[in-house]
């Protein structure tokens, strides 16, 4: 509940502050966000499974986002669309994490 509230506060802060992002970076930021969403769900899951470790969570959150953005950047330099790889990998993981969360919360 508190996490959800924090999510809303963060979103509201972004709406109010209107941070401007250079257009060239937009793609990488979007990829980093996909990775961050995965990490957030992973953290929630581990918390509910009582295996939460703050250090692992923070490192995973930051490094996943950075690696995702970096991969896409490297892909752009090489002319290979690596953003697809990032989307697929993190997409699958997000679904897995959400499924685990659902099983934990609703049972079954």
């Amino acid at each position, binding site marked *: 509940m508190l996490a959800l509230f924090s999510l809303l506060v963060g979103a*509201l802060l972004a*709406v109010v502050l209107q941070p401007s992002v250079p257009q060239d970076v937009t793609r990488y930021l979007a990829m980093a966000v996909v990775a961050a969403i995965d990490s957030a769900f992973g953290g929630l899951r581990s918390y509910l499974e009582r295996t939460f470790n703050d250090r692992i969570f923070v490192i995973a959150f930051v490094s996943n986002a950075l690696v995702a953005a970096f991969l896409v950047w490297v892909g752009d330099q090489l002319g290979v669309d690596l953003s697809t790889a990032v989307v697929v990998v993190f997409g699958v993981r997000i679904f897995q994490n959400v499924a685990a969360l659902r099983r934990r919360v609703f049972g079954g």
Partner: protein
Amino acid sequence: MNLLARARGTLDGGPPLVLVALFGVLGFLVVTAASSVTAAKRTEQPRRTQLAALIQQRRSQVDELDKAVTELRDRVGREEKAVASRNAGDRALSDRLDVLGRQAGTVPMRGPGVEVRLSDSSRTPPEGEDASAYRIHDRDVQLVVNALFAAGAEAMSINDVRLVATSPIRAAGATIVVSFRPLSPPYVITAIGADSGRFAVSDVVKLYSRWRDVFDLGFRVRDAGDLQVPAYTGRVAVGTATPTETP
């Protein structure tokens, strides 16, 4: 103090503060990324419409200037005639100017000739076939124009754009450009002075008659008693080229 324990989630009762804080960061990032993507799209859209508006504006400007050129040339012609009526020397010059103007194409002309109408095929190209065979290209217009000149054409226009000695017929993408004016199909080639009999037996007519049957390309030849072509409004001055020694 159990704040540290609470932050690290080692204490029961409520989610760890690290998790809560990073959720806040996530919310911030999601909104930022989403708004920047839509902002990028929004800046792209008006640029396109601006460009389209600019093209429209420039085209109407060109049309206006064309009209002005025709008007001014008319006035120059009238003034020259007025001067010429006063003495014989000026009259000879004016007559010579008249002839040169007709030859250069800066005078609108009328007379009997041939009108050729070219248009893309109305049939959709079958699967696996080259779609470009069903369209009229710059090369087609060039072939027909050359055949009309060979048949004796003296003054020619394509969709009311006058052809002169320096007029290029070329393609910009899929658009045919004549004298730097983009044209849209159908292409009506008006040729005053072309002999319909001579044109009818040319190879080009035979070729296009066959393609009309095979590809359903639009190719219609009309023999007309009174055709009109407009004056050329571009620059006619020859600057770089100089005559070689006359014999």
